[in-house]
């Protein structure tokens, strides 16, 4: 596990300091300086592994992604609640393998995180070398429902890759 290069530590320090200032709830120079000090101590005591990929953020695509996930969150929350209340036979589900196009660990992580956030899908297993997510999907009744979910997951991946494009050409498996 290689340590983060000093230049790469800056965003981490900024984030930790922000959390520190938010925890205090008030803005002051003392809070800012103590926050930076605490972040430096945290990074020295608990070093993070380096994220090797350089990625940019496209603000507009990111907003589109957030809007999509937020809508999904509401729609599927209602759906899971409906399944919880609906009488009748036991709800069926499926464990589906979704093979993503990307081989990037960062994209894989973000897709997994976004999928898990949305009700109705839980990540059971991840195979990073092949970029495959194994997802438990609630309320799948047949093969058609399974394909619908796969298409949704791939669309999500598409949105995430648009929002976080690689600085250089993305490594793709041939």
């Amino acid at each position, binding site marked *: 596990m290689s340590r983060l290069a000093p230049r790469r530590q800056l965003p981490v320090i900024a984030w930790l300091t922000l959390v520190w200032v938010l*925890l205090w709830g008030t803005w002051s120079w003392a809070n800012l300086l103590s926050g930076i000090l605490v972040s430096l101590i945290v990074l020295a005591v608990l070093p993070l592994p380096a994220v090797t990929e350089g990625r940019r953020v496209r603000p507009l695509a990111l907003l589109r992604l957030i809007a999509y996930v937020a809508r999904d969150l509401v729609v599927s929350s209602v759906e899971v609640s409906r399944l919880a209340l609906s009488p009748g036979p036991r*709800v069926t589900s499926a464990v589906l393998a979704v093979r993503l196009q990307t081989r990037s660990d960062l994209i894989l992580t973000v897709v997994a995180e976004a999928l898990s956030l949305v009700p109705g899908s839980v990540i059971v297993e991840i195979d990073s070398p092949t970029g495959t997510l194994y997802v438990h999907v609630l309320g799948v009744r047949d093969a058609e429902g399974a394909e619908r979910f796969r298409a949704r997951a791939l669309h999500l991946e598409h949105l995430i890759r648009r929002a976080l494009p690689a600085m250089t050409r993305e490594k793709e498996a041939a």
Partner: protein
Amino acid sequence: MTTFFDALAGLLVLTGCLLTLLAGVGLVRFPDVLSRMHAATKPQTLGLLCVVAGAGIRLHRSVDVWMLVLVAAFQLVTAPVSGHLVARMAYRTRHVRSDLLVADELRPDLEAAGIEPGPGRRPPRRGRQG
């Protein structure tokens, strides 16, 4: 105007409570661990966001609002992780009602990788259990 914001805050808090209640109902009614994870980790995420938003509107002049922002952010980041870990454990220890799965694309791949899911393979338990 304050009446409006009070009403909005109340509505958000009540919606959040309702979603959390429905999550509890799902926890009791869903048949196995994997299905229950959906109820336990999800509607409650949106429910918590609603409660936090409602509380934020009521407390908008207090310094505690920033704490609420952190609560929401960390909930969004951590809920998927815990959900994944419990689901992975449940699958590998065979706490899955395979009779209620219409497809299982993980089992063949796991077996191909030489991983036999779980020692405690047993027939599905009937009826509701706590």
